[in-house]
């Protein structure tokens, strides 16, 4: 028991020293606008597509859609507790945490189909928490209480699943989001393990990052206090909404820390999205607003 304690303390100290020794990031972000107060009611996940921002507006029970300058456009209804959305071209997918369903819509809001019901078997969910689409239209869903990822065809037919409850690489502890990278690699916000994990599109484990693992949270660079949501930019960089650290952290696609920001402005980073201009949108759950950040290069000395 004492050995384990000593090893744990050593690992934490080593990680802290490593974290402090890493050079200060040259790249940083500044807030350029904010909006949504008075309209949103507990915004969770967000998605940017074609100049529009789609917000999983959890307690309005809607998907609330804005132009990316903050002008309210419309709302989609028909959800119980929508907490995640992804939009790709003309297709939108919503994860309804309370209904245990994934809803497939056209980008004009017309419902195409919905699938899922409560349970632990294939095509069943116990709290669908995140949804993503790959290059051929397959759909990936993080299944919160079942600690797994399920993969479906674009028609919602079960394809495969992976993951069980656990602390080691390849297992999950309450995953909250999933995104698909440019090579169809799958990134999972393994929230309560305080890490991001990377897999192939058929669920083969590739990598993980975030602190020392085993669900130990931290506020240092590269550590998380609830890695809640993920987004990617065109270069394949990974942005993580680090909820209780009230910040966004940016990594390369391989998990190398690049920068972090937002602690003065964000109360709870629930969702993150990136547009083609590399502007970063953050849903601030407890402040009922969207914050927009733009890259700002520090001047070299």
């Amino acid at each position: 028991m004492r050995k384990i304690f000593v090893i744990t303390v050593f690992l934490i100290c080593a990680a802290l020293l490593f974290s402090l020794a890493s050079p200060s990031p040259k790249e940083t972000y500044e807030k350029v606008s904010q909006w949504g107060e008075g309209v949103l009611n507990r915004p969770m996940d967000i998605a940017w597509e074609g100049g529009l921002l789609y917000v999983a507006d959890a307690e309005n029970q809607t998907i609330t859609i804005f132009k990316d300058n903050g002008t309210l456009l419309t709302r989609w209804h028909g959800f119980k507790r929508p907490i995640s959305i992804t939009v790709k071209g003309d297709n939108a997918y919503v994860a309804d945490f309370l209904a245990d369903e994934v809803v497939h819509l056209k980008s004009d809001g017309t419902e195409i189909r919905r699938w899922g019901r409560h349970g632990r078997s294939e095509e069943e969910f116990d709290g669908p928490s995140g949804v993503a689409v790959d290059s051929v239209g397959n759909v990936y869903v993080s299944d919160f209480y079942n600690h797994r990822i399920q993969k479906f065809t674009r028609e919602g037919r079960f394809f495969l699943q992976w993951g069980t409850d656990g602390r080691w690489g390849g297992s999950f502890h309450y995953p909250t989001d999933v995104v698909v990278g440019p090579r169809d690699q799958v990134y999972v916000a393994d929230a309560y393990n305080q890490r991001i994990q990377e897999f192939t599109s058929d669920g083969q484990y590739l990598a993980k990052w975030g602190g020392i693992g085993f669900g130990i949270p931290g506020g240092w660079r590269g550590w998380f206090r609830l890695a809640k949501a993920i987004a990617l930019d065109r270069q394949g960089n990974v942005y993580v909404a680090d909820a209780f650290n009230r910040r966004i952290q940016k990594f390369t696609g391989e998990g190398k820390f690049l920068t972090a920001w937002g602690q003065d402005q964000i109360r709870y980073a629930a969702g993150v999205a990136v547009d083609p201009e590399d502007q970063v949108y953050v849903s601030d759950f407890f402040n009922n607003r969207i914050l927009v950040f733009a890259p700002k290069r520090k001047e070299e000395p």
Partner: protein
Amino acid sequence: MKARTWSRLPTLGPILFVLITVGDTQSSPTSNPVILHLPGIPGPYCAYGVEKRLMEREEVEKVTMSWEKESLIVSLKEGMELSSKSIEEVMKKADYPYRYSIQR
């Protein structure tokens, strides 16, 4: 002797009241709605997890979040009851790790 017993009543009164109230909370879940206090509730997954598990109960009609009061207001179906033991099961199934209290 009689006078001494009466003089102790102000002390015994609150104790008796607490004992009766505790007994009532444990065994007679008749109020509607039931208010579930979650002091210091940290984030949405805790709240939505508990909400989800409550909505799986046949007794529950509706759950309303009050973030400001750190509470869930649980409306029951007519004639239904939700015992403290059932709520305990709900919290366990939701994997809610923090303390909570029930107001009826």
